[in-house]
Each structure stands twice: as structure tokens, then as C-alpha cells.
């Protein structure tokens, strides 16, 4: 029961995020570049033994954060507080043992990693993140499966939500049968999922699907991409110089 509620909560969140982002413009910089840069940043910061590089990355990310709308800044800050505070607390004994720099370095690295991910999460839609992986050859079909799984989760989440609403509307007062009806809802949702999966597989066959899939990318390399690459090339150079 709890697991079902958790799944519905997750699908609900995805649906909400989808509706909120429905009219949002897509990222001006190629998502693949942004995801790649984020992963590279986290990796380099983890390898870095010099605070200068970590501080430089934090500075760049804070600059990008400052250009975001207030609501986004608030969400990113909320995501940052808990892991940074937790790390600082965990590392606090290091200060008393005479290694205050260790505490500072680790906390900064955690701050940098979470900040990079939170800024990326705020500015990229989840579909853009998955699409970023489809740039790699052979990965596109996995991304298609992932996207379809998410889509089915959402559609079925929505469907079971409507069934629950129907049960709620027919329920008056405290009754035991409401709990029993959850099984019925799950069963119906399962049957619906099977029907939809079959129909989608037929639709794919009708459009000549042979197991191979290539994602369509209308994004062309622009000056924004070049600028973005330039910033990250500078950071890599900084990492090499400060090593």
C-alpha cells in the first residue's frame, strides 16, 4: 500500500512538472553539452586537490544561478542546504582534530556537486536530460525505452488517480471496502497497461520499427554552444594549471 502511494506520488510529481514545463522554451544550449559539462565538473572537482578550481566552479555556477528567476533560486538553495549542512556536521570533528581544511574542502566539494546538479535540474527538463544520452550511438533506443516507461507511468498514474477519485466520489463515511477497492484499481490499471503496451507495440510495427532507433535532433551548433564550451574549456585549463 505504502509503495503504491509512493509510486503515485512520484508520477504525480512528474505530471506536475510536465504540466508546469509544457509551455517552457527548450534549453538554448545543447542538453548533451550541458549534461556532459556537469558530469565533467563533478569529476574534476572530485579529483582536484586545490581549492582554487572548486571555488572557480562554484563561482561560475553561482553566477548562472543569479541569472535565474527568484523561484528557481529558492528551489536550488533549498536543495543545497541539507546536504551541505549534513556534510559540514559530519566533518566537524576534523576541525577539533586539527584539520580544518579537510572539513572546508569536503564541504565545498559537496556544495559544488549539488549546486551543479541542482542548477542543471532547474534549467533542463527531464526529457532533455534523457535526450542528452541519445546523442551517443546505440544509446538512443535505451533512451526511447526509458522515455516510454516514464510516459506509461504518468498515463497510468493519471488513470489510477481518476479511478481513485471515482471511488472517493462513491464513498460516504468510514467503510472497509475502500481499502479492498485499491486492489481492484491496481488490477484495472494493470490490464489497462497491458492493453496500452500492446497497442503501442502495434503502432510501432505499423511505422516500420525494426528495433533500431535514432533520435531526431533539430538543434544545431550555435554561438551559445560555442560560448558554453569556451567556459568549460577554460575551467579544464584551470584544473590542469592548478593541479
Amino acid at each position, binding site marked *: 500500500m505504502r509503495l503504491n502511494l509512493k509510486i503515485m506520488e512520484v508520477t504525480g510529481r512528474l505530471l506536475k512538472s510536465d504540466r508546469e514545463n509544457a509551455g517552457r522554451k527548450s534549453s538554448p544550449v545543447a542538453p548533451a553539452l550541458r549534461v556532459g559539462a556537469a558530469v565533467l565538473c563533478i569529476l574534476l572537482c572530485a579529483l582536484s586537490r586545490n581549492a582554487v578550481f572548486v571555488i572557480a566552479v562554484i563561482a561560475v555556477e553561482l553566477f548562472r544561478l543569479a541569472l535565474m528567476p527568484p523561484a528557481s533560486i529558492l528551489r536550488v538553495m533549498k536543495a543545497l542546504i541539507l546536504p551541505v549542512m549534513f556534510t559540514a556536521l559530519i566533518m566537524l570533528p576534523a576541525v577539533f582534530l586539527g584539520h580544518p581544511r579537510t572539513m572546508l574542502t569536503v564541504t565545498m566539494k559537496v556544495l559544488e556537486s549539488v549546486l551543479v546538479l541542482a542548477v542543471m535540474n532547474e534549467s533542463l527538463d527531464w526529457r532533455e536530460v534523457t535526450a542528452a544520452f541519445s546523442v551517443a550511438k546505440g544509446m538512443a533506443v535505451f533512451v526511447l525505452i526509458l522515455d516510454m516507461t516514464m510516459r506509461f507511468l504518468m498515463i497510468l498514474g493519471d488513470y489510477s488517480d481518476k479511478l481513485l477519485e471515482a471511488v472517493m466520489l462513491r464513498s460516504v463515511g468510514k467503510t472497509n471496502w475502500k481499502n479492498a477497492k485499491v486492489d481492484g484499481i491496481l488490477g484495472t490499471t494493470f490490464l489497462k497497461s497491458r492493453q*496500452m503496451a500492446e497497442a503501442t507495440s502495434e503502432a510501432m510495427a505499423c511505422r516500420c520499427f525494426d528495433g533500431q532507433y535514432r533520435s531526431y535532433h533539430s538543434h544545431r551548433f550555435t554561438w551559445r554552444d560555442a560560448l558554453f564550451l569556451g567556459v568549460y574549456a577554460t575551467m579544464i585549463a584551470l584544473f590542469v594549471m592548478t593541479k
Partner: protein
Amino acid sequence: MIQLEHIDYDYQEIPALRDITYTFEMGKCYCLEGPNGCGKSTLFRILNGLAFPTAGRYLLGGEAITEKRLRDDAFAKAFHAKIGYVFQNSEVQLFCKNVEDEIAFGLFQLGLPEDAIRERVEKYINLLNLAPLRKRTPYNLSGGEKKRVALGAVLAMDPPILMLDEPLSGLDEDGQQWIADFIASLKSTGKLIIISTHNRELAERLADVHVRMDKAHRIICPQNP
């Protein structure tokens, strides 16, 4: 040309089609009409190679379409490239991450070069007024928009035969009008169009031939040629 010869189909011994003998000719628009459960959707499934008759023969361009032949991937691909099928429920037909990817899906499967794919995607995005929706996820679109995307995805593959299962179902008046006008504009392309519908107005407007089925799962009008 599609030829059906004495087609029978049963769902676990429950009859769905009985003695269907009919010829669909290229360049004509056929409206398949009949009550619920008369077998229209089953006939569409057979015509699309998604189900196989329990008796009788189905020929497309003189070639017999059988389960065995469709197991051959190359044959199946060539067969499906000839028939564009727009499902009644567009939701199950749209599975890509955004509208332009949806339209490009079939074109990639046909192995067209990148430039040709780009050109066709742009053409159908403009033709179906999908430009503002191109980066949107199909399942977040309205019913009418989904139907337009499904049509675009199928038409972009340029199939000589087009089948539409209840194309107006679930659409508001404007949406119905738009889709009806669009299908009417397709009639001049020389494609064979088969539409399954309950909508008399649509059938009267579009059909060159009205094909009526009855509760006994037979074609009653026009009589088998």
C-alpha cells in the same frame, strides 16, 4: 489495390468477420460504416497485418499477406511502409519524446538520409500547424493536437494507402472540422483512403464509396463486387 477474398475472423470462436470479399481501389476514398461490434476495427487490424484471417485471403498489390510472410522483417517493413494507419486512440500511437521526434520516427525507420528527414519533418510540421508544439511532449497535447501529430507522423512516411480509425472521435467541433478539411485535401493525392466512422456527415462529405457492415459481421453495401 487491396483484395479481400472470403475473409473470416473469429475471436476465440466468437465471429468478428464473416465472408468479407471486397476490392479497395487506389485513388478512392472508402468510408467503412456500421454499428459498434460489427468488425470494422478487426478489418482494419487485418488490413494492417496486426491480425490474420482464420479463413480467406488478403492480397495487397497482388501479393498475399500472411502471418508467415510478415515474419520476414524486410517484407514486413516494406508492407507497413505502404500502409499508414492512424489509430482511434492517438495516445497509444505517440511514444516519442517530442512532436518532431514523433514525425521523424518512421522516416528514420525507412532509412531516409538526414537531410530528407529534416525536410519532411519541417514540411509536415508546417502543413499540420504543429510549429508551436514541435518541442512539446505528445501526451501533454490536447485530443485534436494529438490527432494532428498522429496524422503527421503517418503521412510523413508518404504511404500510398491511408487508414483512419474513427478520425473524429473525441474531438471538439473545430477539431473535427479541421481534420475533415485536411482529409478532404488528401483526396487529390491519389492515395487509397479508408476511413472507419460513425459520423454520417463526414462519410457523406468524403466517401467515394460507402462500405456498410452489419451486426452479422458482413459487408452489406455495396454488395461484393
